[in-house]
């Protein structure tokens, strides 16, 4: 079967079309068209929807909704999303960022998916026509998920509360050795009152560093203060081994980079 593209004006119609065999949703094309170019003949029909909501960014107060078709470049330049621009800019080079979408990033396997690491730390919700799911739940079963992701939603972190780090071998664009996103809240005395830390490349998809989060509570962001969190950073990780780095290396340097992010 030759490859063909079907375009629908509504998500609903696109979802219906996706029920057919051999279909796949086309976001920015960076994963799906690449697979077709590389000879993946399992997909014969690409489905997309042009429903405007998919391309919308809405910010009301601290509540943010980003349509699934919004590109990394659009996030990076959005004045209300300045806190996230570093994470959006961590994806690909300029051309890729003009194409790669928020929705697509949720499905990108390690070592890709850096923006999803940020979304996981933000504890985003992932929306489909069927409703919303916490991102952690969504990621755990993303392969079995067939409805089109329409948007992600999250609350903006407090000023300076969001930290992001991507470690790559090649600069400035290389893919991840690992990436770390952290959303931290600190009490007036500087102790950490709330922490969410997400890791990229430390498993086949973004994961939370829950032991490190817990170990950070009530501690100050000093070398001594973060030591228990660093010691717990690798709890539960099963990093990928790939051409960029081995699982051993990723585990070895995770705490180093987490420490630098927390103290930075």
């Amino acid at each position, binding site marked *: *079967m*030759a490859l063909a593209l079907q375009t629908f004006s509504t998500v609903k119609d696109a979802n219906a079309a996706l029920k057919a065999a051999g279909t796949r949703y086309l976001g920015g094309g960076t994963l799906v068209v690449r697979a077709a170019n590389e*000879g993946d*003949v399992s997909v014969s029909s690409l489905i997309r929807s042009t429903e405007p909501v998919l391309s919308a960014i809405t910010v009301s107060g601290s509540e943010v909704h980003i349509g699934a078709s919004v590109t990394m470049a659009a996030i990076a330049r959005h004045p209300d999303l300045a806190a996230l621009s570093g994470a959006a800019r961590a994806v690909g080079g300029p051309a890729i960022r003009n194409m790669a979408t928020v929705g697509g990033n949720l499905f990108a396997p390690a070592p890709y998916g850096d923006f999803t690491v940020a979304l996981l730390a933000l504890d985003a919700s992932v929306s489909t026509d069927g409703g919303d799911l916490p991102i952690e739940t969504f990621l755990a079963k993303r392969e079995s998920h067939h409805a089109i992701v329409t948007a992600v939603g999250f609350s903006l972190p407090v000023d300076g509360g969001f930290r992001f780090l991507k470690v790559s071998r090649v600069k400035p664009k290389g893919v991840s050795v690992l990436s770390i996103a952290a959303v931290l809240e600190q009490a007036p005395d500087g102790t950490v009152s709330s922490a969410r830390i997400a890791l990229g490349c430390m498993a086949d998809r973004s994961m939370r560093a829950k032991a490190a989060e817990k170990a950070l509570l009530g501690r100050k962001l000093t070398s001594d203060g973060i030591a228990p969190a660093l010691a717990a950073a690798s709890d539960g990780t099963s990093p990928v081994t790939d051409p960029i780095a081995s699982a051993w290396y990723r585990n070895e340097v995770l705490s180093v980079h987490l420490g630098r992010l927390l103290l930075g």
Partner: protein
Amino acid sequence: MELRKSYFADQRKDDLHEIGQPRPRSDSPGHVTGKTAYFADRNFPGMVHLKMVRSPHHHARIRSIDISEAEKHPGVVKVLTAKDVPHNVYTILILIQIGPEDETVLADGKVRWKGEAVVAVLAETERAAQEAAAKVKVDYEVLPAVFDMEEALKPGAPIVNEYHGQNYYLYDSGECRKVRFGDVEAGFAGADHVLEQTYQSSPIEHAPTETTGCVVAPEGNDRFTCYTNTQAMFFTLDNTSIILQMPGNKLHFVGGTVGGGFGGKVDVIVEPIAILGAKLTGHPVSFIYSREEEMQISSPRAAEKVVIKDGVMKDGRIVARKVTGYTDAGAYSRHSPYGAQKGAGHYPGPYTIPNVWIDTYCVYTNRTPSSAMRGFGVTIGDFALEVQMDKLARLIGMDPLEFRFINAYRDGDMKAHRQPTEGAALIECMQEASRAANWPVAEKYLAMSSYAKGA
């Protein structure tokens, strides 16, 4: 960049008009406007696309190949197997009498590396060729494979390539190319220190931005024009002529600007099968490596292992050097016997050493055949030699740069392969590096010259 004209001024006349002038490149206007024609910029009506079915196994016997479903696939024009290739077993260096023929254009009975070409599918679109390729059924009996050169050289290792009969290339000098100069064991015996170290590399890809490929157009008169990015026009034409048993006058090769070579486009891989496809179908044929093929299927620079044993005196003189080099050819020879031999001519490096022993081996393993790359036979050897030089200098407590001056070759010095040194300039390069990098060395080294002693 700075030209330092003060060196060797007595050997050079700077009286030229065009040579030495930074003339603009005649090809650049085409590059910056996108007008330069690369082979893939040719498009012909009715052109069909060739996709290769490749071995998923490192080493396997082929029990059977079933192409019937692929042939029936819509858009498919032709499916080629080994029996379609007139002279299927070949080796490219046969042109300079380096045999035996040891590689198949399309696998016949056996595959020896993961990615080896088994069946060629020609179809009206790339997609149809990909779909049909997925319908080719090959029944394999997986065989034990060997990836490590040391393992491959052990008795009882699986034989990678029966055309050689053993897992190394057999030179006229035996299992390796040898250089023997002086008495290396006596040199070690008399040395103040002996240091033996092992160096290792893994395969390296040329990674040109333009992948390997060709576009073939039948001229309608039994001649075929092949637009190709080969680095060697007649080398490719003549090998194609042998493989296709087609007189050379039926072949017309057109090259031009190549989108980067670095040694990666001197194997003769895409042209013969594409021309065969054009001959058997009457269609123009395009066969262009995907980036994945360029990365993992096209020949890389060989992995090498280099063992260096040196005898050195406290005063800095290297008195004996023994080098054993292993070149991982992968499953087939291609240019590797030549590269391993080039290493034998390159060691012991640009140093004058009275006792030298060199063995270089070309070893077969079940991996992608390696071949030429920028610095072929030398690059990895230089890494090993020059790290070894650093270690030796530190071993005897000497500055690494001064240590090199002491041993540097000069005009007239006899090399291990028994050629007198001519035109040496290592000393002057090091003198200039000492200045440029502010790496001080004793005055006596700055006063040295590559010219023959006493000249």
